[in-house]
């Protein structure tokens, strides 16, 4: 069974404690602690010692999606202090200005492919440039972003083919025309299935679908349908 969890931000925005409680109640084994806005990062990091994270096999931190230029070095310094935990730090490539400070995170830096509003990091070709600059970084594959950029799922296929060896976690949701995360629709489930075999069974799936507590179980069931375990490839 694939490890599945939620992003705290998807369930409870900046209230990571409440989000964590909802995820724990659903008996998930993976969690992404979200600080999508700059002001949320330090409170989250200061709270790490006091959060009850037992039961989670996989934990990652989602860094802010935008930094003030003067704040980028401060944030990366503070995040680096948490590297001893060995938790991946998910970043949006368009938020990074000074790549040298992020290069030091090595494989813990987890670069996410972007939605179509962003100027970089949307396609395999654009990611190739980023990973050229950050050669050790890993990949957070956002399947909703990839589908929004290319509903044929060719780009999703190309990203997984080119950077599958870097794959650390997968973001799962439907990304609508306003680039907002939505629960999975039937069409998005079918689209995910097209590349499900390229995602190894042990890679955690982090749901970014904004659902209420009573919808979490159903959403997880949809994700299991969308991304079933890879089958054995039969070669004639």
């Amino acid at each position, binding site marked *: 069974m694939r490890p599945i969890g939620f992003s705290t931000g998807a369930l409870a925005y900046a209230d990571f404690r409440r989000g964590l409680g909802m995820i724990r109640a659903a008996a998930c084994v993976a969690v992404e602690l979200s600080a999508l806005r700059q002001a949320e990062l330090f409170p989250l990091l200061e709270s790490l010692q006091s959060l009850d994270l037992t039961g989670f096999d996989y934990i990652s931190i989602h860094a802010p999606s935008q930094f003030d230029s003067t704040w980028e070095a401060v944030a990366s310094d503070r995040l680096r202090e948490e590297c001893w935990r060995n938790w991946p730090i998910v970043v949006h490539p368009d938020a990074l200005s000074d790549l040298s400070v992020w290069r030091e995170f090595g494989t813990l830096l987890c670069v996410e492919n972007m939605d*179509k509003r962003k100027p970089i990091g949307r396609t395999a070709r654009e990611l190739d440039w980023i990973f050229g600059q950050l050669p050790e970084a890993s990949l957070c594959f956002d399947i909703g972003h990839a589908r929004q950029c*290319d*509903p*044929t*799922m*060719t780009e999703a*296929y*190309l990203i997984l*083919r080119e950077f599958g060896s870097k794959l650390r976690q997968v973001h799962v949701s439907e990304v609508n*025309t306003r680039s907002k995360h939505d629960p999975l629709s039937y069409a998005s489930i079918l689209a995910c299935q*097209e590349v499900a*075999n*390229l995602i190894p069974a042990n890679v955690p799936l982090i749901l970014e679908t904004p659902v209420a507590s009573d919808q979490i179980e159903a959403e997880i069931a949809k994700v299991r349908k969308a991304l079933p375990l890879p089958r054995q*490839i*039969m*070669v*004639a």
Partner: protein
Amino acid sequence: MPEGATKVEQLEQGLLADWSHLRRARFAAEEGKAELRKALDGLDSEDTSIVVSGSLARGEFTAGSDIDWTLLIDGSADPRHHDLFREIGMKVKPFASKEPGAEGTFGSMVFSHDLIHEIGGEDDTNQNTTRRLLLLLESRAVGREDAYQRVVRNILNRYLLEDRGLWKGSGHRVPRFLQNDFARYWRTMAVDFAYKLRKRAGKGWAIRNIKLRMSRKLIYVSGLLACYRRHLDYSQQDRTIIFADPDRHKEVVEHMEAVFRETPLEIVAGVLLRYAHLEEAAKKVFDSYDGFLGILADDQSRGHLESLTEDQADKDEIYQRARQFSHSFRDGLLDFFFDPKSELGSMTKNYGVF
């Protein structure tokens, strides 16, 4: 061989030929697209692409060429698309020698839905088939390619991923679903030649006749070769592995997309370059096509063919010269496609005939 030489140039140099009309037409097309891109800058978007077809897209642009364009929309419907479409029409007009064709296939707004969903069946109108297949065979986005690329990929996904024989078969890996539609389109063009002749009381007969024998035939030929390349571009071992692995099917689609980014002449030259023993056929095909473009590039000859009637054609020097080119083109293609020394002959019998 200069670095970055096109396949047509490589063939030309290999055969010690001089295809100056092809060269000029290719440069003119590049210039034309660059000028259009500049004029239309900012009018397209992520959900809309301005797509050109015809000689401009094929890299065969001459002074008398018209500009066939469409506004391809792959996104939310927006009443402002109509204003956008009119604005594009105004901007394209100074570059065009004449108005878009009378059938309404070009100079119009096209939504992606029918192109992708209506393949075959009653709703796949002549116009829809034409638009869809020209998108694959001879089109280029001028400016932003987002919508264009998505639609092309989706169309190819339909033709290839739904073709059971392509993946499950054991013989040639030729996408029969797509090849059948190319063949249908080629026959439709031939039938429509007779239809237009009747509808327009013979007006434009000669130029249309020569174009059918040359440029229309070329796009069918390039489509056929693009289908053959699903087989030819992989080794026996790769075919066994790739076609049996569902996770690599998108790789095959992507490869097909790359083939269609080449012009029809490039596709033909690329296959001919593989077979040294087909030099004579290559010479016939490209010498004649160069001659045909030479006639089109000459204002007087082109104008003459545009007004020539069927009755006058038998004794007309320009028409007869063009006809000779078309015969040589046909003979070269027959030698090429029915070549017994390569797999081309057997593939043509299996896919091009029955």
